[in-house]
């Protein structure tokens, strides 16, 4: 409140004449400082539901394909027909262990299953089998990079570490389609019983962008280790966000939960909207209600869900049909047990491929790439693989050149052709050959770009042969360049005059002239330097004569 008044005084003062300038300025500094001290701080924790990439469901032998004919991937157990019993899928347990290890969690050697009860049409048994008391893994962390070149606040890449409280195995529910017009819900049980990993984070994030960064990192990790396809659009990765605001030093505020966010952008938007809503509400003297909300992507707002009148009582109880799940390590894997019945944490740890964070650090520390390039390359598993493909079996190849050619030129072709890097028919090795020509100064960057275009469009000659055929060798003879530049100056007197009058942009006309004459075979930096010298020299000549 105080800061609002001071800001108002400042506003009124600033409209007065210059005499008040210093006074007003010092007040404004005080106001910002005061405002900063009293500023609201948002606290965000998220829950992630990741569908395990497996052929069959968690406790039944039904398939898990997406968009399968309705209610046709349902076994008697999935439909909760009495007399059926759950049998756990080994693959799901292994996937959960691998994910837990990738998130630096400690894996519990004994974990248990519980029933969580609630009534909903897409939950046939009336309860979900989950792990409430003793989950498969606890206490981990995930490091991600908060970076968004489009927003000034996030233009500098910054590392964020988010603690993982626990990772648990549970069943997915069926899918409901609400037909509001006719007043009924259509239920498809194909998804009912698919294995889920629920990951709960500590409230270590403070805005939408940070939450979005964490989710992007998790998606990358899942795709790298192959435990979840991480497609938010298909619902194989879903996010619930818990949001509250408070003033630093005061206890945490009442939180709301926004459920079922199905894109990374919506996560950021929903959280930022909810933060603004809560701050506005509190500043107006209102109270935040502990409730569940949904995000309406059409309006960009969060809306309350029905059924909030009563606190849910899930009536957790131990699952009587499942004895404890045991996981071993090399020290206690008993040899007399059937090998198929043993899951060894150490074996799984050894099979984890290099994770995105380690790859990113390698790109920066060893390859010398700028952070922005490293983040971009590691942001997509296929892109990273392509990059590694370019450098494969060619220790002499410069990673920097490869990164620039890939990120600037190959991707431009890919976007133009509306395909993806995974299914583009341009072999990484061909791109590598183009990089070599640039690295050895045989061609210019512009010719390199042109070569990428040609090879992408199906030119079968190898890059060196194309250069040979078109005589696209880089012009390195300074005499030749000097002559070319002089011609450019002679043929563009108008541009030269304008440039001398101080209109710097006319200089590019001269560069383009030389570049066009030589079909981009001159290094634009060399041309620029030569042109500058020539123009200056002529300029001094002219001034001397006059």
């Amino acid at each position, binding site marked *: 409140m105080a800061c609002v008044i001071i800001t108002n005084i400042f506003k009124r003062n600033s409209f007065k004449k210059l005499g008040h300038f210093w006074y007003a300025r010092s007040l404004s500094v005080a106001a910002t400082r005061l405002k900063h001290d009293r500023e609201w701080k948002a606290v965000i924790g998220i829950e992630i539901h990741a569908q395990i990439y497996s*052929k069959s469901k968690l406790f039944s*032998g039904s398939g898990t394909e997406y968009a399968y004919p309705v209610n*046709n991937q349902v*076994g008697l157990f999935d439909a909760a027909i009495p007399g059926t019993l759950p049998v756990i*899928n080994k693959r799901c347990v292994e996937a959960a262990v691998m994910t837990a290890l990738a998130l630096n969690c400690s894996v519990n050697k004994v974990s248990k299953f519980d029933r969580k009860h609630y009534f909903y049409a897409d939950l046939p048994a009336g309860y979900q089998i989950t792990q409430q008391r003793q989950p498969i893994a606890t206490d981990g962390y995930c490091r991600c990079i908060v970076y968004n070149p489009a927003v000034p606040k996030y233009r500098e890449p910054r590392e964020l570490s988010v603690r993982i409280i626990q990772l648990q195995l549970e069943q997915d529910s069926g899918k409901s389609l609400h037909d509001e017009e006719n007043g009924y819900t259509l239920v498809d049980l194909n998804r009912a019983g698919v294995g889920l990993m629920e990951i709960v984070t500590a409230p270590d994030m403070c805005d939408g962008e940070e939450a979005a960064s964490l989710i992007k990192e998790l998606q990358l990790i899942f795709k790298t280790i192959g435990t979840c396809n991480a497609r938010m659009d298909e619902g194989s990765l879903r996010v619930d966000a818990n949001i509250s605001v408070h003033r630093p030093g005061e206890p945490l505020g009442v939180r709301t939960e926004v459920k079922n966010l199905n894109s990374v952008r919506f996560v950021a938007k929903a959280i930022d909207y909810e933060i603004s809503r809560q701050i506005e509400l509190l500043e107006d003297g209102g109270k935040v209600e502990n409730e569940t909300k949904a995000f309406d992507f059409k*309006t960009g707002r969060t*809306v309350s869900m029905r059924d909030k009148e009563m606190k849910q009582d899930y009536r957790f109880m131990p699952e009587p049909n499942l004895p404890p799940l045991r996981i071993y390590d090399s020290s206690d894997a008993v040899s007399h047990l059937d090998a198929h*019945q043993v899951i060894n944490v150490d074996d799984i740890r050894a099979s984890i491929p290099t994770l995105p964070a380690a790859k990113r650090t390698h790109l920066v520390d060893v390859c010398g790439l700028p952070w922005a390039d490293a983040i971009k390359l590691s942001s997509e598993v296929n892109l990273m693989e392509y990059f590694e493909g370019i450098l494969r079996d060619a220790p002499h190849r410069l990673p920097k050149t490869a990164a620039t050619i890939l990120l600037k030129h190959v991707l431009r072709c890919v976007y133009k052709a509306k395909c993806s890097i995974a299914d583009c028919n341009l072999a990484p090795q061909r791109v590598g050959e183009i990089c070599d020509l640039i690295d050895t100064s045989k061609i210019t960057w512009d010719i390199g770009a042109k070569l990428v275009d040609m090879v992408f469009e199906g030119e079968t000659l190898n890059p060196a042969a194309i250069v040979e055929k078109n005589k696209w060798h880089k012009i390195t003879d300074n005499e030749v360049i000097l002559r070319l530049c002089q011609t450019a100056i002679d043929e563009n007197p108008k541009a030269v005059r304008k440039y001398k009058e101080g209109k710097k942009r006319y200089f590019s006309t001269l560069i383009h002239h030389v570049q066009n004459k030589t079909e981009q075979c001159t290094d634009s930096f060399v041309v620029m330097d030569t042109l500058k010298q020539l123009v200056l020299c002529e300029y001094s000549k002219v001034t001397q004569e006059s």
Partner: protein
Amino acid sequence: MSLVLSRLGNTVKRLTSFSKLCKSKRVFASNEKSKVPQKPTWSHVEENKLTEETLIDNETIDHLERMSLVDFNNQAGIDRLNKAIRFADQLQLVNTTGVEPMDTVLENRSLYLRSDEVTDGNCQNDILQNATKVIEDYFVAPPGNIPLPDQERDYGPASAKKRK
């Protein structure tokens, strides 16, 4: 409240599975002397030693009925429920210090792991057989938890700017 009930449920379950175990012991190891007393012994528990009696209000009854999908029917049903809770209160007197809670008598066993193969499903007709109403192979259910109609104020970026 429902916690008491579920605890009671657990205890009953544990007792039944325990008695089953005893029976099987008797059948398969009749030579060994059972640690379980052969005859039940009764001890009277003083009413005043018990915790205060739980009184269930109508709201809780409604809640329980909804949760369990069981209709208590009449006052007699509710009385029976109260008595059951009172009976369970005696369990609070049992000294359990140092006793590890037990979920199942199979605690020393390990969960069997199945290999990841599709062996079930593709039986839509069987599955839909139980449904009273089906539209295009979907089960039809009453409307569920859907967002409330939108009547809230806008807090998006545009209005944030306006505020500043």
